């Protein structure tokens, strides 16, 4: 009796068992109906007509093409934004220049603006009647309603991920390491490869994973510029919608299940990298503790 009194007197505000379990219960319930059940439903629906039908619908020509196009888009987007993100992060953390603060704000536009708006903007600019598009049309270059357009909007939508991961880390690490390396005679490339890159490695990989996940799953912007030509400009997310509209529910869910699996894989990788990062920090802390003892 006295011990329970003792422990209840130690509780902070909002720590009463009722509040605690109510919050935990509500969170778990919402997680279940909002996240877990739909995820299970995707796979359940995909297999509703049996495993054979599932695999058959995946190897259908249009589906295979959609998978291929999606992979190509990701394979082009990720390197472009990797380079761009590193450059952007380097520029804003290592140099002082007029407009630096504005640039850091502008960088988030792709997150702030609806992807559909982004798609429309590109359509207006690069479409056959657009400012740049009409010139391109005269030179027989088509970007919109073709795969280059899809890559362009995907690059736009995913461009902040890498820089967003790198900037806080590079700000925190400062430029002293790089200054030390230059004083010791390192060239620009030696500096980047031997000093900067090892320091930002994990954050960079994390940024790439997020970029990839978004590039594979992007729907809104892509749907505006793709023209939805089956077997030509259909990415996997667009293909899911097309199949569903064609009353091929099981096939649509089969394609959707691929996207879901990519998402799960991304989460797994993300967890692994966070674990790696945490572990290396822990090892460092442990080593430091040993030294001081």
């Amino acid at each position, binding site marked *: 009796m006295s011990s329970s009194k003792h422990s209840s007197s130690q509780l902070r505000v909002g720590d009463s068992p009722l509040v605690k379990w109510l919050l935990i219960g509500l969170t778990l319930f919402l997680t279940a109906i909002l996240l877990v059940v739909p995820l299970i439903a995707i796979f359940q629906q995909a297999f509703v007509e049996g495993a054979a039908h599932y695999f058959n619908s995946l190897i259908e020509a249009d589906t295979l093409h959609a998978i291929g196009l999606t992979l190509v888009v990701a394979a082009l987007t990720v390197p472009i934004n990797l380079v761009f993100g590193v450059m952007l992060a380097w520029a804003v953390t290592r140099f002082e220049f007029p407009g630096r603060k504005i640039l850091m704000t502008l960088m988030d536009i792709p997150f702030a603006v609806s992807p559909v708006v982004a798609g429309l903007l590109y359509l207006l600019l690069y479409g056959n009647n657009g400012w740049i598009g009409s010139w391109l049309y005269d030179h027989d270059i088509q970007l919109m309603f073709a795969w280059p357009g899809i890559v362009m909007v995907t690059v736009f939508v995913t461009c902040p991920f890498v820089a967003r991961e790198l900037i806080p880390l590079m700000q925190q690490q400062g430029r*002293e*390491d790089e*200054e*030390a*390396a*230059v*004083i*010791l*005679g*390192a*060239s620009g490339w*030696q500096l980047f490869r*031997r*000093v900067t890159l*090892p*320091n930002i490695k994990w954050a960079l990989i994390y940024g790439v994973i997020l970029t990839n996940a978004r590039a594979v799953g992007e729907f809104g912007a892509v749907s505006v510029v793709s023209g939805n030509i089956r077997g030509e400009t259909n990415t996997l997310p667009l293909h899911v919608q097309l199949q569903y509209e064609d009353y091929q529910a099981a096939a649509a869910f089969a394609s959707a299940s691929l996207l879901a699996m990519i998402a799960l894989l991304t989460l797994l990788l993300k967890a692994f990298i966070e674990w790696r990062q945490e572990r290396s920090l822990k090892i*460092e802390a442990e*080593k*430091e503790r*040993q*030294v*001081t003892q």
Partner: protein
Amino acid sequence: MSILIENISKHFGQFQALSPLSLDINEGEMIGLLGPSGSGKTTLLRIIAGLEGADTGRIQFGDRDVTNLHVRDRRVGFVFQNYALFRHMTVADNVAFGLEVLPRKERPSPTEIKNRVMHLLEMVQLEHLASRFPSQLSGGQKQRIALARALATQPEVLLLDEPFGALDAKVRKELRRWLRGLHDELGFTSVFVTHDQEEALELSDRVVVMSNGHIEQIDQPGALYASPNSRFVFDFLGNANVFEGKLENGKWQNLQANIVLPNGAEQKDGQLYIRSHEFFVSKEATAQANLPLRVIAINPIGAEVRLELTPIDWHSNDVWEIDLPHKAFDKNCFEKGQTLYVTPKAGYFFAHDAQQPVLLNWETEKVQVTEQA
């Protein structure tokens, strides 16, 4: 290698970090740049290294003009305040870095690099830590590794930014002595930045005192202490107490307190700077001075006892500090809250219209007689 600094200035936006200043550093000399934060000492060091560009002026290493030479090609050794060791490399890799990034033609062979690294680690007495990572080292060890790394390419100029700032007092003292030994043995030219006057005075051949982006005084430590040439240097270089006096009948008067002018003093108003150990302390006013003070704190510091005092019936901007040998303190048994009188033995007088001080001495025998009475 000698370093010539001529008319160097630097702006950061609106802020004038360095007014045009010049400085000659002789070959093999060890120079301490001393000043409070914001005095421009680190900026000057970074300009010498080439990490910052100067707005005007030029820099010469020996006969070579390096003003427009890239940091990479200046080949100076630089030790950062926080060491800036590469955290993902072992101690040995850190030290080897400067050798491994050399152009292929100049780069020693891998075995040669290995030998040189081991030799450097022996020099800093840390060869047993070669395969450790920086996070496994203590502050003093990191400092020595940073130094070994800076010396790996055998620079003729070594620059150090607050080299002992982050270390505890004992390690700092040990490393200071060790650095001085290394400097004398290897014969490079060193410039280091510090805000610690004791460090600057102990370590340097000459001290450069800086404030607000310009040089206040350049002198050998002894000369600097004996003849500071401005109020700033005096304030910065050591616990001086300031008495603001108005000339009245051969005395400097400050409300109820006064000090008799010694022989040879200028008949002017001004400020008298008196170092904390240049006092006689008594329980009564003396013929030389009437400076009543109340004891507010008593701190034993090493060989001396430091009294903190506030003026009674006269004005001073700061608390006065007076250092007494234990013997003198024990004899008098001062207590907190007690009133006592002090009499200066020597002091520096800045007439209100003068930039340079005059050294004054009171006739000490007379004071002693009164004290014993």
